[in-house]
């Protein structure tokens, strides 16, 4: 199918004073499903609209299959867009809505009928074909909107928060439908969302956006496990960040020395000694580890918060790998020795706030972000 390339897109507003999108470059492979993910106001919808041709970039280029289409009006780009709130034309029936794009292209009536019927079957709303949009449910409307976009056999499918207006249970159903239809048709797809779980579930790759710039662009697991910067890590819910010095397979931080795995430093070049930020997810810590584990630490339990079957705890590390905290170069400050851990209720129930607990920071869970 089609590949999409964005080259140094810039979009300014307020008479050029502010950037909505800056120096944004991206390459999407054929049939790939990528997601533009970021907090609201990061410029992701603007980027999507530039791809659709609804907004013109101030400079930069957009290429479909390595051909610049920046000069083309939206209707010539064959990039169908599904909006957040379905936007079915209220005065047309579901069938007429789905047929809209084909009618615009002056496809023969019989052909329209055939393709629309197939499409309505695919999204399972054939029986509602002659209803008006206001007569059907929210989920059905979104299906119709999706059908309306896909029936035109676009080069590119653009989805702007397609699930956010739906209830939780409908969202899963709709997500699976989108995945199936996308796989089936092989349409290169760009989705915009602010919901990381949605993005992680659905995408081949995720492009993170912060403040109009492209952040990390990678597979979902990579974003989750190997964030390229602190912002990305934080966006995916990482809470533990330790400034440290790294030397070979070991890192030195305020409460002592920790062992690293080979993977931990994969994001960094071959330098032998440097500064970085160690990050590990709260749920990767092990409470009451076997005494043979590496990176055994002693910590004081500061706070326990019940979250269903597991507990969110705040602990203050006192020593690690039998190195007392004072073994570090400086006195540890509170904020750099307090970390968060998530564990199963049974592991922590025996302890009360103020008790000392044992925990382990597995070397393979540590990821070093340079700088």
């Amino acid at each position, binding site marked *: 199918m089609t590949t999409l390339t964005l080259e140094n897109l810039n979009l300014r507003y307020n008479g050029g004073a502010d950037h909505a999108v800056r120096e944004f470059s991206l390459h999407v492979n054929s049939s790939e499903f990528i997601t533009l993910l970021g907090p609201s106001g990061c410029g992701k919808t603007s980027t999507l609209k530039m791809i659709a041709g*609804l907004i013109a970039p101030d400079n*930069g280029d957009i290429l479909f299959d390595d051909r610049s289409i*920046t000069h083309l009006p939206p209707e010539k780009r064959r990039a169908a867009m599904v909006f957040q709130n379905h936007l079915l034309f209220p005065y047309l029936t579901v069938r007429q809505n789905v047929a809209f794009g084909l009618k615009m292209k002056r496809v023969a009536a019989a052909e329209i009928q055939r393709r629309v019927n197939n499409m309505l079957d695919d999204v399972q709303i054939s029986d509602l074909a002659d209803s008006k949009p206001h007569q059907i449910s929210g989920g059905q409307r979104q299906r119709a909107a999706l059908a309306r976009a896909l029936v035109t056999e676009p080069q590119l499918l653009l989805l702007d928060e397609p699930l956010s207006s739906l209830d939780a249970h409908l969202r899963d159903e709709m997500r699976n439908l989108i995945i199936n239809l996308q796989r089936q048709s092989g349409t290169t797809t760009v989705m915009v969302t602010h919901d990381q779980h949605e993005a992680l579930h659905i995408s081949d790759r995720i492009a993170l956006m912060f403040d109009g710039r492209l952040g990390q662009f990678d597979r979902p697991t990579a974003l989750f496990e190997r964030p390229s910067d602190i912002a990305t890590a934080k966006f995916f819910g990482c809470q533990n960040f330790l400034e440290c010095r790294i030397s070979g397979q070991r890192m030195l931080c305020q409460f002592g020395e920790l062992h690293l795995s080979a993977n931990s430093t994969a994001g960094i070049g071959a330098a032998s000694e440097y500064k970085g930020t160690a990050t590990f997810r709260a749920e990767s810590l092990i409470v009451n580890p076997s005494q043979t584990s590496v990176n055994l630490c002693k910590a004081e339990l500061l706070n326990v918060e019940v979250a269903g079957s597991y507990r969110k705890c705040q602990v203050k590390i006192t020593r690690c790998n039998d190195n007392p905290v004072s073994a570090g170069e400086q006195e540890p400050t509170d904020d750099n020795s307090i970390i968060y851990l998530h564990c199963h209720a049974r592991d922590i129930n025996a302890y009360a706030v103020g008790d000392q607990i044992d925990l382990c920071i597995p070397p393979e869970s540590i990821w070093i972000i340079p700088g």
Partner: protein
Amino acid sequence: MHTLREGRLKTDMTTSVHRTQSSRQTPAPVLLAFALMIIWLVLPLVPIVVWSFAKRWFFPDLVPGEWSLQAWQYLFSPVSGLGKAISASLAIAIPVTLLSCCIGIPAGRALACYNFRGKRAVQLLVLAPVLVPGIAVITGLHGIMLNLELNNQLAGVIVAHLIPALPYMILVMASTFARFDTEFEAQARTLGANTFQVFTRVTLPAILPGIVIGALFTFLVSWSQYILTLIVGGGRVVTLPLLLFNFVSAGRNDVAGALGVIFILPGLIILIAVARFISGRSGIAELPSRL
């Protein structure tokens, strides 16, 4: 803006980007239409203002033969009855507005917040006086008002003006209440506010912009009313429109022009006042969206 232009120019040359989409430059035909529209909207007001200062302005002179204040001098002399006409206009428009508020606010609420049998009929009944011309109603009503001895005096004219004015208020208030979440009132109740407090502290602040728009429009409807005043007032109640009509039909362009200027002023003031009051919103333009 300057740097933006340059930047764009550079890209145009390097990557031959053509900006066909929603570009920030308005195309020439649109600009032309824009200019024509502005001219068309303003144009009829120009000769009115000029005439009010003109004397001996005959065909084919493009500017008046003489500039003169005679129209203004006449109008501001006690003879002209301008003061009386303005006070009559106000003495009608203000009570009409206040009455419309008192009657229209509850009615608007009933139409917006309740479902009841016959609602559709009531809506039609409220809408009808907006659409049915005044002359159609007043010729029949005239006889009734005669018997009630309401003709030829302010009270009767006020009553007559309520016919076209009140429905506007009700329609605006209905739309205002439709946007108002009555849950707020329930919330205030649970916090210990009594009915009166709920109204003054919760409901009133929320619907105030609607009231202001409705009231100002009601005022303008009454202010501009001609035929109802003429027939019910029977010549005894001389409002500004009647005075203007007098001089227009007497061919005194200068006096008519000056009266026209005076006639426009409240609308202008109201427009500016509303724009201030409802900050960020589009002022009187709200009205149509609420009908």
